[in-house]
């Protein structure tokens, strides 16, 4: 599913060169449920951005679903993001002036799915995360847990092979965190590969494999259970 081979990434921060990733090699099988842990600055967000084709890397290779992800045009990158990957962010990243159902349907808009059809699908996914009743609400009218469930519905609506989540429970209390993690487990049970970046031990403990990053290197990689 995912194959990283000696991936390096360096940032220029003022006069300093920061080596965010110092040659990461990592394989993730289809259907796995992986957490990436690490302190701030360990390179975990950079790794997630590269996996999500939101960012480029300097050297090495990255293969996603058999496709080499390298030197893509913006259009190609948009296509892969849209078709293969679902994103969930710590700050939800919903569009404020759109209702919950419109937010969920947005990825399908970029696939050219007709409005009626995509709104119907969006309602199905909202129902799945238990928010069909809040479909017409704007993000500002939703609680944090509700907003994140909308974001999960949005990430799933394109039936991605890979779900990437960046601190998905970072802004939530423990009860809503549990709800979100339950959603991820359900999705994983359906065969979707899930990768969560988190710094919380108890969240990582709910996944099946945990990868510890330290200063741009893999410090520990263990299978749980």
């Amino acid at each position: 599913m995912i194959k990283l081979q000696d991936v390096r990434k360096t940032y220029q921060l003022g006069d300093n060169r920061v080596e965010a990733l110092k040659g990461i090699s990592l394989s993730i099988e289809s259907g796995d449920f992986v957490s990436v842990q690490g302190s701030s600055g360990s390179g975990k967000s950079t790794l997630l951005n590269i996996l999500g084709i939101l960012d480029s890397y300097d050297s090495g290779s990255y293969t996603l679903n058999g496709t080499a992800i390298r030197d893509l045009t913006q259009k190609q990158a948009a296509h892969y993001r849209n078709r293969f990957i679902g994103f969930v962010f710590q700050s939800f990243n919903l569009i404020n002036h759109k209702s919950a159902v419109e937010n969920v349907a947005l990825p399908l808009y970029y696939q050219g799915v007709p409005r009626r059809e995509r709104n119907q699908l969006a309602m199905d996914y909202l129902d799945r995360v238990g928010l069909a009743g809040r479909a017409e609400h704007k993000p500002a009218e939703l609680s944090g847990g509700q907003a994140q469930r909308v974001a999960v519905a949005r990430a799933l609506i394109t039936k991605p092979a890979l779900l990437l989540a960046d601190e998905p429970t970072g802004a939530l209390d423990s009860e809503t965190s549990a709800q979100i993690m339950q959603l991820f487990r359900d999705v994983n049970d359906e065969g979707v590969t899930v990768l969560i970046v988190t710094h919380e031990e108890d969240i990582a403990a709910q996944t099946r494999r945990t990868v510890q990053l330290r200063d741009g290197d893999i410090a520990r990689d263990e299978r749980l259970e």
Partner: protein
Amino acid sequence: MIDTDTWQEIAQSLRTHKTRTALAVLTVAWGVFMLVLLLGAGKGIQNGVELQFRDDAVNSIRVYQGKTTVAHQGHPRGRSIKFGNDDFDRLNDNLDVADRITARYYPGGDSIVTYQNRTSSYDIRAVHPDHLYLEKSIITEGRFINELDIRERRKVAVIGVKVVEGLFEDEAVLGESIAINASTYRVVGIFRDEGGRSEQEKIYLPVSTAQLVYGAGSRVHQLLYTVGDASWEESKASEQQTRELLADRHNFAVSDERAVRIYNNLDEYQKVTDLFFWIRVFVAIVGAGTVLTGILAVSNIMVISVAERRREIGIRKALGATPAAITRLIVAESLIITAIAGYLGLLASLGLLELLKATIVENDYIYQPDVNTPVVAAVTLLVVFAGTLAGYLPARRAAAVNPVEALQQRD
């Protein structure tokens, strides 16, 4: 290019940013409004000045008597040149482009005009039949002086409508006799003139009759003719020909411009036409500046719009929006803003011009402010096109936003 979904996206975005949208619309609408108003005012002033030329035939040339300023063929300088019937005949026979031609003889002194027991004083002009065309007099009743009047030295008069008002009450005017000083004339026609009140307080007599009555022999004071549809160059050539014909007969130097003074109405018309060319250039520059301001405003607003929506654009890109989709969204937004604004500005300015046309008091400076509709429509289309283009650069920048950076921006 723009499907229903894009329309809905745009409508939503514009609704969300009402103030910004309203400001952009206002700026562009104001630009178009001012431009159309400027064009209208320019046209109005032009119409107003052209109205000033309505009094006389635009293509007329007037020849006045003068004094020589150089000695010529034994004649001393300072000699007065006096016109006579021979000069009229000579110009009439020899000018290449003379279309209508007349002489004028002024009896001079006070002209006391009497009808029954009413008396007043009016200006008398003794003329040929073609004078009608030179002064652009309009016969409202009866007829003007004709060739038979000239040949038979008939004692007939054509009087202005203000003369009728002054001397007559409700009686029939045509066929009545009026006395000018000691002589009696039969009124054969009434005229009006767009040159205003004083032009309508004139009395016209046949030139031959007046020369006889006032003992002037064959003297005339002025020669006037029109050059038909001759060009300005031909009309200048005709001036020169007139000067040569008269110089030959009166023995003055052709180069002596003060011996006879020639006044070419086309010269004045040409000057005014030139002036209007420059007024149009000025209006075009100011108008272009106004429109440019509007376009910059749209561009500016789109830049702000893009900056404010960096995060939203980042989200859209993360969800799979292609750069083209982002560009299309922003460009379409500026297209709609400018199209609506252009239309509103056009509507408001045309409305105001119509209102002005209907209500403006007749004056010497502005008459019938109007615009050429295809020109204005083309200008509006240009504004819309340029406004759309103005949205393109910010749109390109938006499309190139790095989603990672954009997503880090807080709302």
